[in-house]
């Protein structure tokens, strides 16, 4: 097995050498990552780097992100949808030559669910896997009773609590299900300690297309090709350099100076310039997220659904997107994202300003008279302020009401949103972790931790659970249509627009396709001069 890896190593190096000067992609990656341990981190910049170092059981197709074989070459799902059997590829190795076995996955999940380790994304395991929640809470101490089994070194069996039609998408798109090299981690400290040095260059061991070469904090992170990766011959880049470019204008200057091949974002003020002068390097891709205003349905006047609907209908989304956000966004008239894994909501907010005025009058505020003091809360940010001011003006013009604007610093605003709920209307956004319509619908369940509208509907909850038991996606999507209809009718949130990713990609980059999660699997990317 070792000689086979050596052969692959030689083949990969030979291929790389034959290709000419080293292909190193320089990526603007927003912020310095918290860490490179898939079981500790929570952010998107971390995700981008981890995509290069680790691979999951299944991974993402580079065109439409559907799950394709990763470290597992195939899998079987039982007819009741509760048992997943993954078959790992033969001869998988970590980048130190150790074999990757099903036992490694078991040990990794045990670490992720260990209460004293306090992993933040553990819920992506314990929401679905039998016994995992009890283990995470310390109620169950025998890990062998949790729904993970490794009957042999190449087979992993996962037993779920209830059918989860989107489980493979989570495994493909999120690092929470990646295996970590627990034997290596154990050399640097206790497995339930977050502050060990196992992720430092020279210590860390990876399973994905690249390995960590260097990490200078707040300067750059360098990864180089991993010859032990099962598909090393298919990896085109020799290395990637990740730059923590937190400041948008600085990142754009770096791109212009030729120091970056791709950026994380682009200042909106520059979109018009690039459209005119450098359109091939400008990317405006649909992004699986929604920008909306959330209502606290226990506070007057937004406790009346007619008022909520009136507010939702009385704004001109097209004008807002054309003149204020200017990022090619699409207006949203429903909470669900049209085109998300083949689902498009048919129920939409309909009516326009006339209908809004009628509803407001019906609620007892004809022409806006007597409308009580109302405020919109947003987190301090130039773009949110501009959008709020535009909406404030539209409501004044179309409904005759005067709404105040309040902004709070990010974490203070989050505290208000999650804990105190001291708001009537607040700006919010939701970005999907995986491409499935469930992502936008599950949060409106009564008392869901991310609901925060204090709205609940028994029928909605019933439908949500029925959808998970649906026999196929067609049946499931039919149920989602009913749920979207309830959301449009009750209007606990006011959808405004669907996000886009606006960023720059150098003309030399190939193998980079627009995807809804803005994920671009690194093994397919290469540079051409």
């Amino acid at each position, binding site marked *: 097995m070792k000689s086979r890896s050596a052969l692959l190593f030689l083949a990969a190096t030979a291929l790389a050498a034959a290709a000419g000067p080293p292909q190193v992609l320089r990526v603007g990656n927003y912020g310095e990552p918290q860490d490179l341990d898939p079981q*500790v981190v929570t952010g998107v910049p971390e995700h981008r780097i981890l995509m290069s170092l680790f691979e999951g059981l299944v991974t993402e197709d580079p065109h439409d992100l559907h799950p394709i074989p990763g470290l597992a070459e195939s899998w079987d799902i039982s007819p009741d949808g509760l048992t997943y059997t993954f078959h790992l590829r033969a001869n998988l190795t970590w980048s130190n030559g150790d074999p990757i076995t099903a036992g490694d996955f078991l040990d990794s999940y045990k670490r992720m669910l260990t209460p004293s*380790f306090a992993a933040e994304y553990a819920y992506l395991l314990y929401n679905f896997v039998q016994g995992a929640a009890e283990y995470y809470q310390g109620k169950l101490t025998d890990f062998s009773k949790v729904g993970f089994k490794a009957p042999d070194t190449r087979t992993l069996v996962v037993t779920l609590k209830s059918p989860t039609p989107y489980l493979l998408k989570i495994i493909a798109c999120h690092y929470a299900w990646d295996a970590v090299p627990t034997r290596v981690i154990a050399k640097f400290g206790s497995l339930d300690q977050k502050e060990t040095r196992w992720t430092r260059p020279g210590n860390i061991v990876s399973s994905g297309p690249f390995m960590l070469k260097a990490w200078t*904090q707040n*300067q750059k992170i360098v990864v180089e090709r991993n010859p032990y990766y099962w598909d090393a011959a298919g990896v085109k880049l020799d290395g990637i350099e990740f730059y923590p470019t937190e400041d948008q204008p600085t990142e754009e200057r770096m791109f212009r100076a030729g120091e970056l091949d791709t950026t994380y974002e682009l200042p909106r003020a520059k979109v018009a310039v690039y459209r005119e002068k450098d359109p091939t390097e400008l990317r405006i891709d649909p992004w699986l997220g929604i920008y909306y205003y959330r209502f606290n349905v226990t506070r007057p006047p937004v406790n009346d659904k007619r008022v909520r609907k009136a507010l939702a209908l009385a704004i001109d989304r097209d004008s807002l997107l054309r003149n204020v956000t200017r990022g090619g966004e699409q207006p949203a008239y429903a909470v669900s994202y049209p085109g998300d894994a083949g689902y498009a909501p048919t129920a939409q907010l309909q009516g326009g300003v006339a209908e809004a005025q009628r509803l407001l009058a019906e609620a007892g505020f004809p022409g806006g008279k007597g409308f009580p003091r109302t405020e919109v809360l947003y987190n301090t940010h130039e773009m949110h302020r501009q959008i709020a001011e535009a909406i404030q003006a539209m409501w004044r013009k179309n409904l005759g009401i005067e709404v105040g604007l309040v902004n709070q610093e990010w974490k203070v605003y989050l505290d208000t949103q999650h804990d105190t709920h001291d708001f009537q209307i607040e700006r919010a956004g939701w970005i999907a972790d995986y491409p499935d319509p469930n992502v936008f619908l599950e949060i409106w369940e009564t008392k869901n931790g991310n609901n925060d509208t204090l709205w609940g509907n028994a029928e909605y909850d019933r439908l949500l659970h029925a959808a998970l038991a649906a026999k196929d996606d067609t049946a499931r999507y039919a149920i989602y249509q009913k749920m979207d209809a309830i959301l449009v009718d009750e209007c606990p949130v006011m959808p405004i627009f669907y996000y886009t990713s606006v960023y720059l990609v150098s003309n030399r980059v190939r193998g980079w396709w627009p995807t809804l999660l803005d994920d671009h699997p690194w093994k397919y990317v290469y540079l051409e001069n």
Partner: protein
Amino acid sequence: MLRYIGRRLLESIPVMFIIITGTFFMQRFVPGGPFTAEKAVTPEVERNLEAYYHLNDPLWKQYADYLWDLTPKRFHPLALAGGFDLKEAFGIDFRPSFKYPNRTVNEIIAEKLPVSLELGMLSLGVALAVGLPLGILAAVKRNSWIDYVCSSVAMTGICVPTFVLGPLLVLGFAIHLGWFNASGWYGPIDRVLPSVTLGSVYAAYIARLARGGFLEVLGQDYIRTARAKGAGETRVIFRHAMRGGLLPVVSFLGPAVAGILTGSFVIETIFQIPGLGREFVNSAFNRDYTLILGTVILYAGFIIALNLVVDVVQVWMNPKLKFE
């Protein structure tokens, strides 16, 4: 003088204690915590996180535990040689950061402080090298066109913010002329634009203060005596007027150095420099309790030390002042 310095150092201990206590409690009373995020933390995760970081202990106990961690417990100063690890050397444990769990606050400071110090000292150098000659020239050639030009340059430097000057310099010298990188802190050439940007503001202040100081001194009797005795203009400026003329600059330098070190946040963001200024500010936004305390303690220490140095230097320079 030694007694004075010793007394000032002793006085600074209660000051530090108050700063640490004040910061520790104030940061807990601010809404939001290290794990507050857009995707709400589930109650189970929250419980485990609080247990991990002992955030569910009573607040006075967390405070006492933190103070104990900060207290020096041993004395191996030689251990400082490899990476400035205060825990190894003196048993002072600043604990891991909340935001960067696999790095200790000690490590973050040890890695980033030298960068900020380098940036600060280079900027100060630029500020003095540009500001002093401008100010002295303006004072000596008072009310001539030279004075007006120098004073205008100084005024522009004070008025143009660093986040305007920085990008302009990058646009001109890095993107169009290609003489420098647009950002980064890799080689000596990357030091130029950031130091010039940060230094320019302080150069402007130093120029105006030097001008004012020199004008006042040049009108004094002893200067007239020196001139009457036949001293040349250069000798008058450098030998006789310098000490007095620089007094206002020296008093300004204390807070200025502190300002350069902490205010480098903007420069570090514009030029992508891995310095401590950004951590100082971002730690508050991130509610990174341990890093906030670590950086606050560090900067408080600097300011206390710098004020002491400035006071000592002032007494040395101005014979009219004495240590009390």
